[in-house]
């Protein structure tokens, strides 16, 4: 069967797809918590430094390498990296560009399911918080619902009693994901994000307006007002800047938020035409992500929590982490909004679901592309195989829910640590092997903007050095503890074995693809440069 060549329908489509991949739960839940815990407004100094010195330059490198690979007919990160790095080492290091999105998808769709399940509950009457009870009792009620949906109290919990609702919701969410991935790039993913992104912005705007007009809901507690809530998030504490952990947290936030070093941009950009702009597209996708993160995430979450829960309640919520804040604390906040509780709750979780699904859709495309080009199988057959792998991963995630050990382990290794590794590999190959002069010229092919020349220096020297420092700092700070944790429970051990199994599968597919493409005469080592 002859298949049409995959390509984007419009330049806005690819920008929205990359932005959709980047905008996720972290924009609304992780960013405000990180900022409040690391200097408030002052956090924005290292945050924007990391954006301009790491996030945007590495993003440009990925867009450029992806489009270059696509010109040679290569789409999976291993083959694209093999062409950029002219050989096997780069190709096999490029496996991280498939392992990361595929591995993350195993648990991300599960968390996406929570948002969907919360949304369904809010539109059908709420999650059962009694607003007349004390805040402590409401928090306990919210916690019970959270446990019911996430199965965090024990392995296999989701397959018993009322928790089966989560499994049913997962089936629906996974099916929606597969439907759009199966439909392909322009007819599936691009079409979906073209609607989802504007709707998400409208939902965020409505929730933002509601939060900013809360005033002082309880006149007996005049300090708990919107202005003080904003102050909790934005008042700068400059002493945090002298702490290395603040700079590490800012770099980490930029990384996980922008989807750089994730393997998605390189794959998406490979479907662009040779003269399509990548410079402005990369910048626009990053800017969109920042709008959702700073413009919405930085204004909504903690302000709402502060107004109803006060200083100590909000600080306690931040300490519970992103998920505690988003799924446990905010429902208590919504319960204080009277008649609007279910409307705002539904809008909030629908928005989170859109943020999550526009990210999860992007996680399957790299592995489908990699399998297709390695085996020459059809899009449908490749999607079916990846769906099978995704289902196995998801069943493990749904079963090993105790303490969230399974997904937290995959999240640390695949969704955090390997991202640093891939980003380092990419920027070093781009600046030093492909060559910065060649890369700069390639970046500006068909560009709608001229990137300031200082970025040539940043991409060659500053970004790799910055990344190495952050990577070493991150390793020293977290690796020992994480290694111990990763083998401490059944769930975490199964997670480690799952990662190893996916890695073995990807090495085999890459090896098969290498042989097939070579036999077909494809220039996978870039012996005849396409520029």
């Amino acid at each position, binding site marked *: 069967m*002859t298949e*049409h060549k995959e*390509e984007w329908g419009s330049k806005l489509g690819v920008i929205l797809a990359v932005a959709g991949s980047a905008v996720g739960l972290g924009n609304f839940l992780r960013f405000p918590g990180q900022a409040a815990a690391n200097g408030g407004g002052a956090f924005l100094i290292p945050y*924007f430094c990391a954006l301009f010195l790491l996030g945007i330059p590495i993003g440009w490198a990925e867009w450029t390498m992806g489009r270059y690979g696509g010109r040679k007919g290569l789409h999976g990160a291993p083959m694209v990296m093999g062409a950029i790095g002219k050989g096997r080492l780069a190709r096999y290091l490029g496996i991280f560009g498939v392992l990361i999105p595929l591995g993350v998808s195993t648990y991300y769709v599960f968390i996406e399911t929570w948002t969907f399940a919360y949304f369904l509950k809010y539109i059908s009457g709420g999650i059962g918080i009694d607003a007349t009870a004390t805040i402590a009792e409401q928090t306990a009620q919210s916690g019970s619902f959270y446990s019911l949906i996430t199965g965090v109290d024990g392995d296999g919990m989701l397959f018993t009693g009322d928790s089966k609702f989560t499994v049913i919701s997962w089936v629906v969410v996974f099916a929606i994901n597969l439907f759009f991935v199966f439909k392909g790039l322009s007819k599936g993913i691009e079409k979906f994000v073209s609607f989802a992104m504007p709707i998400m912005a409208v939902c965020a705007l409505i929730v933002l307006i509601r939060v900013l007009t809360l005033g002082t809901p309880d006149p007996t507690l005049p300090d708990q007002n919107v202005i003080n809530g904003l102050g909790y998030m934005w008042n700068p504490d400059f002493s945090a800047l002298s702490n290395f952990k603040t700079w590490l947290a800012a770099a980490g936030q930029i990384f996980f938020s922008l989807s750089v070093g994730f393997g998605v941009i390189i794959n998406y950009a490979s479907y662009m*035409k040779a003269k399509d702009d990548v410079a402005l597209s990369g910048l626009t996708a990053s800017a969109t992500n920042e709008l959702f993160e*700073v413009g919405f995430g*930085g204004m909504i979450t903690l302000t709402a929590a502060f107004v109803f829960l006060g200083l100590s309640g909000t600080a306690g919520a931040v300490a519970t982490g992103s998920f505690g804040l988003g799924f446990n604390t905010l429902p208590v906040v919504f319960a204080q909004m009277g008649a609007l509780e279910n409307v705002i709750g539904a809008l909030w979780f629908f928005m989170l679901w859109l943020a999550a699904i526009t990210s999860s859709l992007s996680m399957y495309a790299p592995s489908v592309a990699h399998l297709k080009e390695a085996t020459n199988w059809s899009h449908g057959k490749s999607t079916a195989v990846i769906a099978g792998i995704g289902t196995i991963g998801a069943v493990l995630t749904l079963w090993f829910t105790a303490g969230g050990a399974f997904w937290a382990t995959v999240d640390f290794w695949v969704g955090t640590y390997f991202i640093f590794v891939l980003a380092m590999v990419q920027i070093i190959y781009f600046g030093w092997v492909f060559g910065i002069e060649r890369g700069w010229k390639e970046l500006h092919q068909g560009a709608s903007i001229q990137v300031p020349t200082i970025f040539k220096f940043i991409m060659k020297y500053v970004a790799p050095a910055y990344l190495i420092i952050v990577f070493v700092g991150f390793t020293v700070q977290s690796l020992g503890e994480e290694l111990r944790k990763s083998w401490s429970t059944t769930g975490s051990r199964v997670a480690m074995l799952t990662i190893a199994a996916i890695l073995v599968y990807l090495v085999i597919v890459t090896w098969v693809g290498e042989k097939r493409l070579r036999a077909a005469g494809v220039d996978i080592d870039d012996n005849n440069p396409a520029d």
Partner: protein
Amino acid sequence: MTTLGWIFMTVSLTGVWGGTFWCFKKVLQSPADEKAPPGFGP
């Protein structure tokens, strides 16, 4: 909220909103997409 808090918030919000609008304006002003010729692809 302190004066510095207002400054940090205003500057950050102006930056992200202004930056995003500027980018999208440039994207929409740039030449229309090149159409693929008929039969493009294998």
